[in-house]
């Protein structure tokens, strides 16, 4: 973050926004003549700043030739910048408007932004634990019976008899698949949330499934398609993760929240300086 702030502060456009505004304001005040746009005064402060920027960037001070080049570059950009403003290139360009508005926001938040400490992350995580909850999940297998026959195909056995067979443990795993009717969706599902199950099998099935014991064949359970004998393989309760499981997400959100708070505060301070009038008629008018 500090590196990014430095990057932002180093950035020429920022300098020129600030410097340009300052120079225009200063020269308007000091020299309110017609030709103020044609006068560029490269002040000692400015040269000092160019010097420092170079030094920060390259780790050593510029020599005189380099410094002269920096000054020439500054003048060149200043001339072009003023001409662009004079030609109204900043006008009615929504991108430049938004860019300038954002720029000032970036600067506002950048000044005091630092990496959150472990304690701060922990506090933020504790405060917003619910946000990081991992929903409950169930993995399961099932045997399907269509409404048309309700019996295991070609076996004549009832669903109840098939359930008893499954519970007795006498059915080899490879044969389970063949006990019911053909089923188009999957016969085995890895961990699914209740929402996921509901969207695949319907409300009734999803609600029953999450009440079934683990490891036992149960049912029949109705779905949007028919009846099912179901064995829940594993069940994971909804739980709050530990901080380390979601640390990156927590850090990102904390930083996002802080940045937003900085910008909001800054904006509110600025906003107090303005008297805003809104033509309410057009807001309430229904076309």
């Amino acid at each position: 973050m500090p590196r990014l702030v430095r990057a932002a502060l180093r950035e020429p456009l920022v300098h020129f926004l600030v410097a340009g505004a300052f120079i225009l304001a200063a020269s308007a005040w000091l020299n309110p003549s017609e030709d103020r746009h044609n006068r560029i005064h490269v002040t000692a402060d400015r040269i000092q700043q160019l010097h420092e920027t170079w030094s920060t960037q390259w780790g050593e001070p510029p020599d005189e030739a380099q410094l002269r080049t920096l000054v020439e570059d500054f003048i060149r950009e200043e001339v072009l910048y003023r001409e662009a403003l004079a030609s109204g290139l900043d006008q009615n360009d929504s991108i430049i408007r938004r860019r300038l508005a954002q720029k000032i926001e970036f600067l506002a938040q950048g000044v005091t932004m630092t990496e959150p400490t472990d304690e701060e992350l922990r506090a933020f995580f504790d405060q917003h634990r619910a946000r990081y909850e991992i929903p409950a999940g169930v993995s399961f297998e099932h045997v399907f019976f269509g409404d048309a026959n309700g019996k295991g195909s070609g076996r004549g056995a009832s669903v109840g008899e098939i359930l008893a067979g499954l519970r007795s443990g006498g059915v080899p795993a490879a044969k389970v698949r063949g006990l019911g009717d053909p089923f188009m969706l999957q016969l085995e599902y890895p961990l699914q949330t209740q929402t996921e199950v509901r969207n695949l099998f319907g409300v009734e099935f999803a609600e029953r499934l999450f009440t079934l014991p683990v490891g036992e064949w149960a049912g029949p359970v109705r779905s949007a398609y028919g009846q099912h004998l179901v064995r829940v393989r594993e069940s994971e309760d909804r739980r709050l993760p530990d901080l380390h499981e979601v640390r990156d997400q927590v850090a990102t959100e904390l930083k996002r929240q802080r940045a937003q708070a900085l910008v909001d505060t800054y904006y509110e301070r600025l906003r107090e300086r303005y008297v805003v009038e809104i033509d309410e008629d057009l807001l309430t008018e229904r076309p």
Partner: protein
Amino acid sequence: MATGVERLVGAVAVAGLGGAFLFGPADPGTRRPVAPAPVATLSAAPTAQDVPANPERNAYFGDVHVHSSWSLDAYTLGGNRDEPDVAYRFGRGDTIRRPDGSILGPLAVPLDFMAVTDHDAWLGEVHSCVDTSDQAYDTPTCRQVRAMEGFGQLYGRFGRQGLRPPDICGESGYGPGNRCLERAGHLWHEIQKNADAFYEPGTFTTFAAYEWTGQPPGIGHLHRNVIFRGEAVPEWGGSAVEMQNRPERLWEWLEKACVSPCQVMSIPHNTNWSEGVSMAPNNSDGSPFTEEILKRRAWAEPLVEVFQIKGGSECYTGLGTTDEECGFEKYYEICKPGQGSNCAYASDYVRNALKSGLRIEEEFGVNPFKYGLIASPDGHKSTPGDVDEDAFVTESPKFAHDGSLAGPYGERQDGGNITNPGGLVGVWADRNTRESIFDAMKRKETFATSGPRIHVRFFGGWAYPNDLHSRSDVVGQADAGGVPMGGDLPSRPPTAGAPRFVVWATKDARSANLQKVQIVKGWSSGGETHERVYDVACADGLTPDPNTHTCTDNGARVDVTTCNITAGKGAAQLSTTWTDPEFSPADRAFYYVRVLENPTCRWTTHRALARKSPIPEPSTIKERAWSSPIWYTPPSQ
């Protein structure tokens, strides 16, 4: 960061300072973490080889046609500022945060696979125009792009003419130094990176892809999506502009540039907008087919998209068919005498192309229209898979005060009718990996739906038992004794009679019950093509009339003032084993399945009820699914 514009601008100046914090990643969705990894485990994500395979194959649903802000029309007409990564997040089930602060998603059921297909034409141009550091930023054309106006004019003046705007791209023509091509080349790498970054083998499959946006001057649109199987892809060179909008040149380029291990397919769509050209019995410039071009085309294009937000392309009542279910979500009216554009031609419809393909095969030995079927929405708002009729908001057609509707981009399209939320592609693949999904698409074991996740299986063979559909090992037996959808019937044994088909459909638990299952047959006989639609399985204990081959109305209705549907009507599953009652061993033929749901409220009705405005017609729809065909070829003489 919120938008394409600001993101690029921000990246130039502030190195992402604002992006990471101000807007941050989208909120998490309702998914479970893929692998709730234990602490300090740095083990690699599961690779495709680790994903268990189901030899009987699972149905996976996808959207392989969605645009982000990188597409000129999405950026200008649609005002879309969400980049491809946002589309992938939405598709996998995350919520996304719009630049205006609104939250969208999550999808009720996340997609299993997807590909973002941004337009090739203007890919580099759009990016130059929103990058303040780009020398083209202040050009007149860029100002026009940013002002979000004149899409049609821009596209018509440059892309359709095979030109690039010189003020943005420079004067160097197509050669080196064309700034737009250089930029597009860079973006093509970004497209691949995005697809790779969101790929989770076993959970969420993504493909590097783009939309080849060819539309030569004076004719309709020949757009197709180009989808690559894996990480091996050619360098950028695939834009329709440089190919003068000719698909023949696309196939040629793909053949030359995509060599093993690269694998690719090109999928035409919106043939209903092609003004007779896309599936005409000649090349796109009107020249006659050659065997060479047909072979290349058949290799490159195994699939066609039959349904999307701009309407259905299966068939059109009155254009080569009297099938009453062919009036579904039509975009254009049938061409009137003398009318050449913005109207429907017979050859724009896939069923007619399947039929004419049989005739072309008789002449050239190659069938260029041997298409498997898919659907995808073609949304322009970075929200793939957003196909529910009752929650269709993100494409935001404007709802006019008189109850009529404007077009999908908020403006009425010339001569067109309003469309719909679009559909999905289903594939039968042994696992959810790039290789399995792509290969299933290549072998055409695909089906299309108008939105709901209706499952449909379809097999053909010569000796299936009559009750195969009700046996618990139906898939194993059907595979062993025949072919799945998209295949060719094996050679007919001398003792065999007519081909027999196993048809099986299951409803979407979130949608209405099924009303009936149909088989559509097309064949070529005596130098002409024919078609017939058979109802083969009816809900509610009804059976198809043996003479007319139709189910009687099951009486399912919708109350359009509440969208309640008749209780107790329709079936959760329908299946049968069907024998062609009018088979002629000498005639080339194809068979595909169409599954119809009981009627439900159309999205326009849901919207009208929410807004208490008049309900536009049609007020209801029968959602549906289409299988890929199975073909029969008589033994050569």
